């Protein structure tokens, strides 16, 4: 009896802090569970939010669906864990989620001090401001003395302090724990301005009681490379996340879409052949079947399809590709070759 108790106690303490850093540990545990746990936003239109039926949609959600498709050939094998900004990294560190796909900015301190890796950037963004039209403000430089609502635990909170300090302006910060509380407080008139990533401004504006009463100011005050994060130490898992996004980018570059992916398998183009696994054994190298990219494209589509459906012309947000266009079209999205 005593022995059993002691071993239970040991088991508890050990499991409390177990982080599983051996090779392929995350992939194996995901396969064993039979689903992927994906840390997602608590609700940000276009990036990650549940609809009325409870099914999740968005650009960040599509990445999780794509990873699940690559592993299980089934994009629905994902369990979404909505996380507030201030809880997200702890949830990833502690192993509560396998991947954090939640419009998180990659920064050096997060990469090196939090025990995380950012394998890829799936949306290039920057921080902006939204104000009420009737204030008559047309530039962020005119915000001296304003109260500004922001979400705590974000890079936004830090950039805000930097920007006002650099421009020698005063402001009053009102920080809330969740994006929902932050925007509600702004909408209720607690603050003069609301700040977050530009994509988030367009998404949140849709939720305002009168969306047309608000304008987004032209200044972008920071670089916000948003991407998925994984735990440091399991590089195979980081590879799977990176190459899932790269498969979607390469598919867009090569013109492979959800609709034509099956016909493309017979293509003579060696690049397409390597991507779709009819030539070489690229899937095996990351612990997946060789047709992993086919699964991703068939279930989720290429990057352009996912972008347009969630945040682009096919959505209510109508965000232009801009920096997120392919490198061939003047953007920053660049598919690393599969070879």
């Amino acid at each position, binding site marked *: 009896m005593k022995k059993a108790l*002691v071993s239970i*106690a*040991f088991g508890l*303490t*050990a499991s*409390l*802090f*177990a*982080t599983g*850093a051996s090779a392929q540990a995350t992939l194996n545990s995901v396969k064993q569970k039979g689903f992927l746990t994906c840390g997602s936003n608590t609700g940000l239109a276009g990036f990650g939010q549940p609809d009325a039926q409870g099914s999740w949609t968005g650009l960040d959600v599509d990445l999780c669906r794509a990873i699940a498709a690559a592993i299980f050939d089934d994009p629905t094998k994902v369990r979404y864990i909505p996380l507030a*900004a*201030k*809880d997200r*990294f*702890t949830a990833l*560190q502690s192993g509560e989620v396998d991947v954090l796909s939640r419009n998180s900015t990659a920064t050096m*301190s*997060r990469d*090196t*001090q*939090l*025990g995380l890796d950012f394998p890829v950037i799936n949306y290039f963004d920057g921080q902006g401001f939204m104000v009420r039209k009737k*204030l008559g403000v047309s530039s962020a430089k*005119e*915000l*001296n*003395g*304003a*109260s500004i609502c922001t979400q*705590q*635990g*974000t890079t936004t*909170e*830090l950039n*805000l*302090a*930097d920007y006002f*300090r650099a421009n020698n302006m005063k*402001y*009053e*910060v*009102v*920080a*809330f*724990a969740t994006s929902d*509380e932050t925007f*509600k*407080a702004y909408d*209720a*008139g*607690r603050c*003069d301005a609301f700040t977050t990533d530009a994509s988030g401004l367009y998404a949140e504006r849709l939720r305002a009681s009168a969306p047309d009463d608000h304008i987004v100011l032209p200044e972008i005050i920071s670089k916000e490379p948003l991407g998925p994060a994984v*735990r*440091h*130490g399991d590089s195979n898992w980081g590879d799977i996340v990176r190459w899932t996004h790269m498969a979607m980018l390469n598919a867009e570059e090569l013109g492979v879409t959800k609709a034509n992916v099956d016909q493309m398998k017979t293509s003579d183009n060696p690049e397409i052949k390597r991507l779709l696994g009819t030539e070489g054994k690229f899937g095996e190298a990351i612990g997946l079947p060789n047709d992993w990219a086919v699964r991703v494209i068939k279930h989720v589509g290429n990057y352009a399809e996912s972008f347009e459906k969630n945040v682009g012309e096919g959505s209510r947000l109508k965000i232009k590709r801009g920096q997120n266009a392919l490198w061939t079209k003047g953007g920053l999205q660049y598919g690393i070759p599969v070879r």
Partner: protein
Amino acid sequence: MNSVQTAVSQTSPPKKSFLYDPKVRGVFYQVVLVAAIIFLFYVAATNAIENLQRAKIASGFGFLNNTAGFDISQTLIQFSAAGGTYGDAFIVGLLNTLIVSAIGIFFTTFLGFLIGIARLSKNWMVAKVAMVYVEVLRNIPLLVQLLFWYIAVLGALPQPRNSLEMGAGFYLNARGLFMARPIWASNIEILVAVLLIGLVVTFIYRRWARKQQEQTGRQYPVGKVTLALVLGLPILTWIVLALLGANPISFELPRKGTFNLTGGMQILPEFVALLLGLVTYTAAFIAEVVRAGILAVSKGQTEAAGSLGLTPGQTLRLVVIPQAMRVIIPPLTSQYLNLTKNSSLAVAIGYPDLVQVFMGTVLNQTGQAIEVVVITMGVYLTISLLTSFIMNIYNRRVAIVER
């Protein structure tokens, strides 16, 4: 074999083995338990450190000296994103927690006693109003009440451009309560000195008056003299100084700025909402504690006081409450502790208390969850134990002295 043993035990008293001595056994098991607990903590700590290192997560308390880089809306000490460290942010959060708790405890005690006494009022209306207050306030979750105060009550206030003017330099709008800020001139020292003199004289006078009453039974107007010395004297000095053209206090009034009122003093709506929520909620519990305490004083005491010719007010103040305090103090202490701990719900309405600043922003910016959580738990434990300690000293003073 069996018979031999029985024979032995009959002839000499059973020889106690060292192992079967109940005393030794008792000590042994306690030592084992303590050692096991220490070992468990040691294993957990080393395990955590090892895993943190393996996962390349920073650990240790060095982060407290790093620059914070974010701003906080309410700071009682100098704090800015440029120079403030995470350690400073911790102190800012701690002070914000302490000030809302201290002010909250003061007001909730007052309101709680008032309602507790009102519940026992002979006036039907007063008693029922107090009863409804207690039943409603203590049966709705505090979080809901905080959101009610913050969103429904304070959120409905007008925007800064239509601020409510309340006179005497007071303005109210959705950004908070604004008031004149006193600016002390250099000769404020005169006023402080006068106040100190007033306090000392009051103290001496009160001791003298008490002695006189104990010896002769004659009563002196202690209350009026105290008021005159502590309040009247400094105000008189102030007026005289102002008439002489050396006004020691001037006021900076809030003015309309581009976005909001500028200058003066500002009390954040988050602070007001939290304070209102904590005070009204805890007062409902304190009212019940007070009511129980008063009911615990036997009716004979009130009747005896009445027959001595004391008025109902005097009976309450001099006979009932002092005896009720013995029953009231221990549960009152736990209500004070509850209020302090409940102030951490500030996180829901954006008031920068310890949990919001330290366990929210600092934890997230540094990622050092274990250190931050341990510090925060230690702080709440210390505050609670200190409050208990002080209240226990007070309790010992009012407790019945057995003769």
